[in-house]
């Protein structure tokens, strides 16, 4: 009887304790999401968004008709420069010409074999 009472008492103390003090996790996550959306909205107003790069932005945000109105005060777009290998006209590799002819799929063998030659293992058609 006493043990049952003790267990019930422990449960009663444990239930409110576990649910109390929810913390600020939810509030912070909501705030971050709002900040991210607002920033993306501000950036998308810019006319010169590069394919790759960074954008520094300063804007004044006011509420108008329940929606944020963003006035970009200043911004700096720095496109990312992709490094291209310099093309040396003198040293570039010669392109292999493509020969249009039917390929006999039954006659695949040694890649080093010169056309017209026969190898020892290859059965002689004669």
């Amino acid at each position: 009887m006493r043990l049952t009472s003790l267990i019930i008492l422990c449960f009663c103390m444990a239930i409110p304790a576990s649910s109390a003090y929810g913390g600020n996790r939810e509030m912070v996550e909501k705030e971050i999401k709002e900040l991210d959306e607002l920033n993306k909205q501000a950036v998308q107003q810019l006319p010169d968004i590069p394919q790759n790069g960074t954008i520094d932005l300063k804007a004044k945000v006011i509420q108008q008709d329940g929606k944020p109105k963003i006035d970009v005060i200043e911004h700096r777009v720095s496109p990312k420069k992709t490094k291209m290998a310099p093309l040396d006209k003198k040293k570039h590799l010669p392109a292999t010409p493509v020969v249009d002819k039917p390929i006999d799929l039954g006659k695949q063998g040694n890649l080093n074999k010169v056309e017209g030659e026969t190898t020892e293992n290859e059965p002689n058609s004669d």
Partner: protein
Amino acid sequence: MNRTVIKHVILIVVGLAITAPQGWAGNKRIMSIKAAEVVAERAIVESVHGLKLRAKEEVVDMIPTTFEGSTESKTAATIKGIKYEEKTYDAQKDIAKVTASVQLENITNIDGKPMSLGNKVFKRVGFATSTPAMAGPIRALRAAELDAYKQLIKRVVGFTLESKTTVENFMLKSDEVKTKVIATLYLAELTDYGWDENGDAYVKLKLDVKDASAVIGEKVVESADTIEVEGLGSQENDYKSGGKTSAQPKTKK
């Protein structure tokens, strides 16, 4: 005979031990009530005379542990005629609640401008405790109050957004986002407050835009007649280990 006497003595001692903390509560009760009066007075001053508020939020790579949010408020004024309408004290929790009100015709606001209040009654509530273990819900309420002030200011005068964004194949990635607001606010009215089942506090504040605009003498950016906001505050900081994070607003009086 002796046994009976000893039994009675033990009973009296136990009885005294149980009742003594309540009977001789010391100055806890008075301290908590006085503190609640001061908190209610501060709320009245913030509503009528106004407050200066500086708030900033910052997040890097959209990671919650890097989020830093702080709100500082400042106010100082001499106001005569504050009445305490209701004083309640919970002896078990050592929490005092004081409702204060003021009715004024004119006042000089925090910006030094004279304002006509037309004898409107401003009513605010203050909570306080002298037991640190019981301060959690009260701190959460103050955090919610400051959050509500910040939201009102953001709606009334706007705020500054600063960011650094990376674009990769036309896809935006927010690297660093900051918001800043520094402004003064007056005439905010308390409409509701409380705590939810998780112990998080909420404070609802209302601002009559037309009144505020007329009193301030400047056009308010918001087009609605009244602005109502809900501020939130929590008792615990889930990102304490991050060291840098402080989502609960800091207060300066």
